[in-house]
């Protein structure tokens, strides 16, 4: 949905038009939910945050000024709410940062990348994404799921572009090594082939 359509719907929402709200909700709910779920890893909580996020739109639709893509703006709201939910989590609910997966590895070879690309599975990628730190996982999601540009990711994460580059670099190393371990464990890839 482009920003023009979004603006029209927001205008109607400003007049308490429920049908417009429903249309906007359905257009963006899955993306926001996917983003929040990636952050909080809890379906129920992700749904609550999605509803809260969309409720903010209902209460103050004029807050969106069209400076960014609406989805990016919405994710910014969802992010604040997810971070608040995150802060309220008990310590034993926190993710491990998984220091056990090495970031550094011997130089990658073209064959290793090709083989990894061919053998990595969705479940393995999901498991390895889950092992990244929150910031790294969010960064990967924003780039590869949301398709945001470097500047947009920096805006959402509230950090300089160079920090995004660094996060992506470390996330890439960790996820690659995690995937290699998984593939090796399943006996599908000879040890050392991708490293």
């Amino acid at each position, binding site marked *: 949905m482009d920003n023009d359509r979004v603006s029209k719907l927001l205008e109607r929402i400003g007049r308490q038009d429920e049908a417009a709200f429903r249309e906007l*909700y359905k257009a963006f709910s899955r993306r926001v939910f996917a983003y929040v779920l990636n952050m909080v890893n809890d379906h129920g909580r992700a749904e609550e945050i999605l509803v809260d996020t969309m409720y903010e739109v209902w209460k103050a639709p004029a807050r969106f000024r069209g400076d960014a893509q609406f989805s990016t703006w919405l994710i910014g709201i969802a992010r604040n709410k997810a971070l608040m939910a995150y802060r309220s989590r008990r310590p034993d609910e926190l993710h491990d940062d998984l220091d056990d997966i090495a970031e550094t590895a011997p130089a990658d070879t073209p064959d290793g990348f090709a083989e990894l*690309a061919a053998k990595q599975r969705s479940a393995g990628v999901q498991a390895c994404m889950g092992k990244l730190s929150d910031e790294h996982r969010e960064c990967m999601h924003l780039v590869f*799921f949301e*398709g945001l540009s470097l500047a947009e990711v920096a805006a959402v994460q509230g950090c300089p572009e160079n920090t995004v580059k660094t996060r992506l670099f470390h996330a890439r190393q960790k*996820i690659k090594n995690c995937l290699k371990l998984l593939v090796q464990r399943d006996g599908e890839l000879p040890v050392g082939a991708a490293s």
Partner: protein
Amino acid sequence: MNERRFDDMVAFYVNGTLSSEDRAWFESYLSAHPEAASEVEWYRSLQRRIHDNAPAVPATIGLAKAMTLIRGDRPTFAERVSAFFGFLGMRPAMALAGLAIIAVQAGVILQMYNATEDSAGEIRALKASVSKEGPMLKINFAPDAKEADIRHLLMSVQGTLAGGPGQLGDYFVVVPAGKEAAVADQLKSNPIVQAVALAPGLPPRE
């Protein structure tokens, strides 16, 4: 230097957000370093897998909760009345007093109206009134249920208000024939409903 630039750009090349200038540089780098293509392919595969892992949820996830929330956000009848008196420059206590006077007057008028109807009882008995024939459902709503929520709920079950609310807060609602039990179950699961019972018809006038 070039390798570092390649590393910084590769993710954004794959997600298609590089500027045309950066994209041209990146593609010329790929031409000069064909071995780097496998890394690009790995990123593409990673992107596909990440999309595959998107949660399979309907677009309506949470929508019912959101609608309840936004309807609850609207001013209640009492708030609207209070706002109206506020608009007239009256203090809340005066507004409440005014409201009480209106309620008493409305009660007197209703009583007079009922008395008139009773005197025409014979004529009324001859006249069929589908909406007041049983069976129907007797429903009690939570004290904080809003008028809009009640209306919306009754519409959702194709219910027609036949009578009420009585002194005990009983609403009598006619629902599609044969669906009384199913509708009753559906209503019971709604948080604004306190009790639902099958009633043979409207109770006699007091």
